[in-house]
């Protein structure tokens, strides 16, 4: 069923009796051409592009819970393509372009809102670094704009410009960045994939791989064995657990990241703002809540809930740049499990097991990557070749010494 203004009016007149389910709830078949493990944003996007771009229709997405219950439904919804390094920036810029056309592509309102993002800068050295980053972005076809303090003040007059320690001296703006309604991304991709014949199988955890003579021929699940010519794993925070079942150790640690939402306020924040001297980012949802977050808690965790020291740290970051945030009451907070890689950048690659492919290491920034991740993973699964913008996102970069380390932190996942 296509959604349209006409359809809304028609259903309004018919008492909304004509809306069907947005995707089916099929029984798993015995065999598929391609199985994607994980019904998060990346798995569902992969299935959508496999069907739409590569004409693969015998595809299943296998999800242990319900789709959208993982990080795709837990993040702070920021999208941007303001990376510095060559291995990353073309990939994230492709993602931003796909976001721009997403709703037309999916015929689904994902509330893609290019409200702009400003990374605040607080010192002369940081200005130099941001100029360099902005130039790298523009060389890769992205947009970037350097703002002085007066320009930032015009847009966000209530920020703390005169802080003695971290005065706001300007910012790097990307006007095409913004926010997206996160669960609608999962639902839209699910509907797009389902309408092209992809089976989305929920409440069915993958419990093992069947590997014969170095080749993956399917997966064991809670609902029995399901065969496949190729299997792609896109389980984000659970990457270590799932790939362990194929006997692989990964350059990844799982860490918890928290998010926070305040009570609903009148419109105050037009775009996304990030603190340059600590780790804090904030935007305002369409319902009015301030949505914000900061660092990961910093120790290995699969708990999907964080601890209080990080809550304090995040709130201090908020108070440092936007003191009025202290007057808002915190409504909700929660955690999600991040697949933190050794250099802070992702992996979309084949594995030593023939027919088994891997997508992960998204750290806390994989939501913005969802369209390009799905697009490039579908490309790899369908053609056995990396997509041109994902050629650097390989497993062997660590052994070969080609890390993509945006922050320059080295192999310490909790610092990326």
């Amino acid at each position, binding site marked *: 069923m296509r959604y349209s203004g006409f359809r809304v009016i028609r259903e309004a007149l018919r008492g909304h009796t004509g809306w069907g389910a947005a995707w089916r709830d099929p029984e798993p078949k015995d065999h598929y051409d391609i199985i994607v493990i994980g019904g998060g944003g990346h798995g569902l996007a992969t299935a959508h592009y496999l069907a739409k771009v590569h004409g693969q229709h015998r595809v299943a997405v296998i999800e242990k819970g319900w789709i959208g219950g993982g990080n795709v439904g837990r993040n702070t919804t920021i999208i941007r393509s303001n990376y510095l390094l060559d291995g990353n920036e073309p990939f994230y810029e492709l993602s931003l372009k796909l976001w721009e056309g997403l709703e037309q592509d999916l015929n689904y309102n994902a509330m893609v809102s290019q409200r702009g993002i400003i990374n605040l800068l607080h010192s002369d050295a940081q200005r130099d670094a941001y100029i360099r980053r902005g130039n790298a972005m523009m060389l890769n076809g992205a947009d970037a704009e350097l703002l002085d303090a007066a320009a930032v003040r015009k847009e966000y007059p209530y920020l703390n410009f005169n802080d003695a320690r971290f005065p706001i001296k300007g910012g790097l703006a990307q006007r095409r960045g913004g926010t997206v309604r996160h669960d609608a991304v999962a639902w839209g991709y699910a509907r797009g994939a389902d309408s092209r014949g992809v089976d989305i199988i929920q409440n069915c955890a993958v419990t093992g791989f069947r590997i014969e003579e170095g080749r993956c021929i399917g997966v064991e699940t809670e609902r029995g064995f399901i065969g496949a010519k190729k299997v792609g794993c896109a389980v984000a925070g659970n990457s*270590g*657990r799932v790939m*362990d079942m194929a006997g692989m*150790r*990964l*350059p*990844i*640690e*799982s860490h918890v990241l928290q998010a926070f939402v305040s009570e609903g306020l009148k419109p105050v924040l037009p775009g996304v703002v990030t603190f340059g001297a600590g780790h804090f980012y904030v935007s305002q949802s369409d319902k009015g809540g301030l949505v914000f977050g900061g660092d990961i808690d*910093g*120790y*290995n*965790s*699969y*708990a999907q809930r964080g*601890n209080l*020291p990080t809550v304090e740290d995040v709130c201090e970051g908020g108070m440092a740049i936007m003191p009025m945030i202290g007057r808002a009451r915190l409504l909700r907070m929660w955690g999600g499990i991040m697949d933190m890689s*050794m250099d802070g950048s992702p992996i979309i690659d084949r594995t030593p097991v023939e027919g088994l492919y891997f997508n992960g290491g998204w750290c806390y920034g994989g939501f913005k990557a969802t369209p390009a991740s799905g697009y490039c993973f579908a490309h790899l699964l369908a053609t056995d070749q990396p997509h041109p913008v994902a050629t650097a996102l390989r497993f062997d970069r*660590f*052994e070969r010494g080609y890390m993509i380390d945006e922050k320059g932190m080295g*192999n*310490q*996942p*909790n610092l990326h």
Partner: protein
Amino acid sequence: MIIDHPLLGPRDSSEFVYLGDARMLDRPDPDAPDAARAFYEYGYLRDNPAGPHRELWFHEGGDRSWLVVTRDTVTHEITRVEMARDVARAKGRST
């Protein structure tokens, strides 16, 4: 999380800095023929278990000793705290 420091008693985890898997105490032999591979695995690959995890914490805001903490990554429950020095010595390493 409260870490029960063997010398100082219960301390808040925010006094500590986290490094990661305690396997980092097992530095490979740089003279072994497969040293390059061993150092790659040592530096970059992790077991990353869901469940009990032995890990290194540094008491930066305290006595600056390294600890090996056994903690469940699913519940955050800490079941054992040892001085990293003692763990390394028990493996036959000096000082």
